[in-house]
């Protein structure tokens, strides 16, 4: 199961596991794009990954301390997420599943909004239509549902002439994230059918992290998941999802092609969930320490660090990134502890847009009921 990470001949990889620049044959067509990445961008990629790992560790701890109801760790999947999110243009729309913490924060979503969701304060938490959130849509917990929403959004882009005009500065695309488990859901298949039928400007970004809670990817598919796209008439590519440069390049090209009117594209990013599925889960019950060690050697952050060191990055840079990430995580902790409670009346808000008599009646009943206790005390 793990051998594919090293021996899949069709894997786009730029950095070897030890961080040396060693493009696979499949990476050849992406090399001009890789070469165009500036030093500042390389540093940003690294900083993004370190920052989200610190945030993720902090959030996991907060859950252990009873501050969050649940946490889905992104530990190990940083490169796939950072590469793809940094490849998107500002006008693109991003539809996450529920683990894409750095995808959303790169687009501008405040990490505390993700915390609020997992703390049980909201079912959404941020406004995808607010420009400060960079067109990052809210999390979706029902697996694969968001692939259809993204496809519908892409259909809207086509109908409104917002894409495929030939102006890359203006053309829009959508990228939708889902996992190897979700790939078995009917909605993902229907999304691929609709996307191809309506030629949506869309990238299906599958993070194959090898485990759908306790069920291995081999139970989801007998063939590499990347091959499924061909059945819908969609070009697809398999990338080393622990290689941020390769993830960036394949996403960038796929989005450019989609945006230019060439239709949907699929990417399977081969990565690994180093942590639990969520904090409710115990991965020691279903996977081996050998497997975890195998993937630890392919850690996306260590790999990128060695690459940057090989290019002469100074130790001070890494120290600075670590310190900034620690401060970021500390800030999340402070702000989490400052989060207040909720007004029960809030549950009646926004069930409908127009007033609804039943909801209004129940809101009033609860208010009167609670007020009756206050009167009793007076």
């Amino acid at each position, binding site marked *: 199961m793990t051998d594919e990470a090293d021996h899949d001949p069709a894997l786009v990889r730029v950095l070897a596991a030890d961080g040396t620049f060693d493009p696979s044959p499949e990476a050849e067509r992406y090399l001009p794009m890789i070469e165009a990445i500036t030093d500042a961008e390389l540093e940003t990629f690294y900083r993004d990954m370190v920052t989200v790992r610190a945030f993720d560790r902090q959030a996991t701890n907060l859950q252990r301390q009873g501050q969050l109801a649940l946490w889905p760790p992104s530990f190990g999947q940083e490169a796939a997420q950072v590469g793809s999110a940094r490849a998107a243009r500002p006008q693109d729309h991003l539809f996450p599943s529920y683990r894409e913490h750095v995808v959303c924060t790169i687009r501008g979503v405040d990490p505390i909004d993700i915390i609020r969701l997992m703390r049980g304060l909201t079912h959404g938490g941020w406004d995808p239509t607010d420009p400060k959130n960079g067109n990052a849509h*809210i999390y979706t917990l029902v697996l694969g549902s968001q*692939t259809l*929403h993204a496809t519908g959004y892409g259909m809207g882009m086509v109908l409104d002439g917002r894409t495929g005009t030939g102006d890359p500065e203006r053309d829009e695309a959508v990228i939708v994230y889902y996992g190897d488990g979700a790939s078995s859901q009917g909605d993902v298949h229907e999304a691929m059918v*609709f996307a191809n039928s309506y030629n949506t400007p869309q990238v299906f970004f599958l993070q194959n992290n090898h485990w759908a809670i306790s069920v291995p990817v081999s139970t989801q598919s007998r063939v590499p998941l990347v091959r499924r796209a061909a059945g819908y008439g969609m070009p697809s590519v398999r990338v080393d999802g622990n290689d941020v440069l390769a993830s960036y390049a394949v996403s960038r090209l796929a989005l450019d092609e989609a945006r230019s009117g060439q239709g949907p594209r699929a990417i399977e990013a081969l990565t690994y969930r180093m942590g639990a599925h969520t904090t409710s889960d115990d991965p020691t019950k279903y996977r081996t320490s050998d497997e975890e060690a195998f993937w630890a050697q392919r850690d996306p952050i260590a790999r990128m660090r060695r690459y940057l060191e090989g290019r002469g990055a100074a130790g001070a840079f890494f120290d600075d990134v670590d310190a900034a990430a620690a401060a970021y995580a500390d800030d999340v902790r402070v702000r989490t502890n400052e989060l207040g409670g909720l007004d029960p009346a809030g549950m009646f*808000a926004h069930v409908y*847009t127009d007033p609804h008599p039943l909801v209004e009646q129940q809101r009033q009943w609860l208010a009167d009921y609670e007020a009756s206790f206050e009167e009793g005390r007076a």
Partner: protein
Amino acid sequence: MSVDTMPFSRALNAGMRRAMQSDDHVLMMGEDIGRLGGVFRVTEGLQAEFGDRRVLDTPLAESGIVGTAIGLAMAGFRPVCEIQFDGFVFPAFDQITTQLAKLTNRHEGRMPFPVVIRIPYGGHIGAVEHHQESPEAYFTHTAGLRVVSPSTPNDAYWMIQDAIASPDPIVFLEPKSRYWAKGEVDLAARALPLHASRVVRRGTDVTLVGHGAMVTVLLQAAALAESEGISCEVVDVRSLSPVDYGPIVDSVRRTGRMVYGQEAPGFTSLGSEIAATVTEQAFFSLEAPVLRVSGFDVPFPAAKLEGAYLPDADRILEAVDRALAY
């Protein structure tokens, strides 16, 4: 002259045409709705008039239809989805109940989801399995959805326009046995708001309440009762969620008796809910328990048995007699 006589299906068609003319982000989507005009021809001519970018013959995938409609709504469109038959809505049930119904709430009101799901429903057409069902309770049980069902061409014409204009998701149930029924449509003025119930016949002894195609049966029963000297009032619920209890409760306070008629199975049904609420609100006016006449709690039977399954005027009258016997 702004009053026209037309069948229920043409009234829906005319209402949708008018909605599409007034807002170019109103879209129709569904299986066979374009060139064919839908299996009931409700969308006939719309693709010819508005083009295949606004009247979409979709792939055959109900979850895909509703799921992409949600995305289209996010992108600023007002999609009207046609589900071909009642029994085929369930592949889309997840998108309707876990997504569409909840997304306004999950976005904290920042994004409207003006999606209409049109579903031809109910029996009386002698069809085969999965083509004659009444799934309304599944949707009325789900917060975030509104559910409506017109019973006359005039209501069909206006309610579809109101549903499309609503910022909330609406399950729009079309009693398919009524598609060919003709009636007057006032093209200039709507009779009632979308979420109002309506007294369609005045009476003093028993209040008959129902929705969709059952309203016709209730009116038949009321006419038969009259010949026996029993005066029945008939109320068309029209809006299944929210229910407008005012006219129903007022009527029961006057008559002291109520019978609810519905094609759907009775257990945990709309009739059960309305019966319970009317009992709470009009308890001291009631001379008899609120009675329900429903389809049986069995799978909708093979078509040759639908006559035995579906409540007809006689079964309504049997309940009327029981109510009067208290």
